[in-house]
């Protein structure tokens, strides 16, 4: 299991040993959104390009779109978020994961930030 990578849209990506990736939103993102009340996840098997809209997360106040951090196919979704969307607030980088995807263009991984780059990015907001 590798360290987390990040996008400027506040998603985290964990590259797994089997070549797939797990995707969720960062602690910063859940804090900005506030109490999450609904997560709309994609159908398994959907193939999407990098930056395509793939999911929606809604808090009491706001709705946010989740973009594909990398080109790939949706392999699985975190179905428990349907009944317990608040897990995204409680454990955003663990049990609050959104989906797993295949990594179709491994070179796109280079466009993602590592932990220190993401922290620097947050510092500049």
């Amino acid at each position, binding site marked *: 299991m590798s360290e987390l990578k990040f996008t400027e849209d*506040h998603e985290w990506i964990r590259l797994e040993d089997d070549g797939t990736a797990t995707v969720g939103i960062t602690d910063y993102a859940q804090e900005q*959104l506030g109490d999450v*009340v*609904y997560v709309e996840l994609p159908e398994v098997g959907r193939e999407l390009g990098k930056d395509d809209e793939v999911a*929606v997360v*809604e808090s*009491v106040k706001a709705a946010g*779109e989740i973009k594909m951090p990398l080109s790939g196919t949706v392999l699985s979704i975190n179905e428990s978020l349907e009944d317990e969307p608040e897990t995204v607030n409680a454990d955003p980088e663990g049990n609050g994961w959104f989906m797993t995807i295949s990594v179709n263009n491994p070179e796109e991984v280079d466009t993602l930030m590592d932990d220190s780059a993401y922290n620097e990015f947050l510092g500049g907001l």
Partner: protein
Amino acid sequence: MINNNTDKPSQLKKTPLYDLHCEQGARMVPFAGYEMPVSYPLGIKQEHLHCRTQAGLFDISHMGQIRLQGKQAVSVLESLIPSKISDLQTGQQKYSVLSNDRGGILDDIMVTNMGDHLLLVVNAACKHEDVEYLQSMMRDMSNEDCQLEFLQDKALMALQGPAAASVLEEFSPETARLHFMQGGAFNIRDIPCVINRCGYTGEDGFEISIPVGRAEDLARLLLKNDKVRMIGLGARDTLRLEAGFCLYGHDIGPETSPVEAAIEWIIADKTNKSSCPGAEIIWQQLASGVTRRRVGLMMQGKVPLREGMDVLDDSGQLAGCITSGGFSPTLGKPIAMAYIKSEFANTGSQLQVNIRNKNYQVETVALPFVKHRYHRSN
């Protein structure tokens, strides 16, 4: 993913409780020209539930407070609203609207008869226009004895929730005599206040007008009681939505009449037309009905209903539009208010809302979503 508001903080005004908000860890956002707390570390959902179970303290100092004084203050105001003020006794409060000549709403207002003057509380975003409008109308009625004072030296806070009365009585026992929609001058310790038993949450509670220089003292005093927590604008919005109250600029505005907004109960005498702007249209609507009405919407499922979403009938034709929507922390499900064609405005109509290319079944329901719990007389 997250929209950051680009208004420059330097152009925004601060309320007298600004330092307290920051100290409490509030997330500050631009609202009606002010830097206001949208939420505190507790979060909107828990703040909301705290207010429903204990007591919430809201800074609403951005709202406008206007004093109308003089022999004709009552008749001047009464000529601008569809409600009667002349029957409002000293110490009584009333909700009404400033109407425009199309029967629409310039602002919704609270009016208290303070004995020797009227005290108006108006919306933050409308307050400067309201003052200008009232002054211009008074100039047109130049022989009338009526003076206006814009009370910019007063802060306003709301204490709301089932514990609000016991908390306030601890510092000002005399407030126990107030019932819902009553108000007057009181001291809280040595601080002179005007207190009205009213609010925007559906709970029992008070709105407290206080000199700007003493606002922070009062807030800190009230916060000493463990039952009291600061509540931000985020929860203020979800609380008022559950209570079925209109938010100006969303659920009511210049293009909606009091009858369409389903607040025609503000019109005491439905047979005798008032002389307010647009009275012809408003009383015509009272007599022969309207083509659309504000109603509540509820749905199964958890997708939040949001402002701006279209509401469709069974054949996919437009039946109305959502003007306020969100997630109800009390009910644990989405709720919304919408203007719906009158033929569907009765309780129990089955309609659809299209969210991201998927149709969801919604049902029209009576307002409020959560029962009001006021301290009424008898």
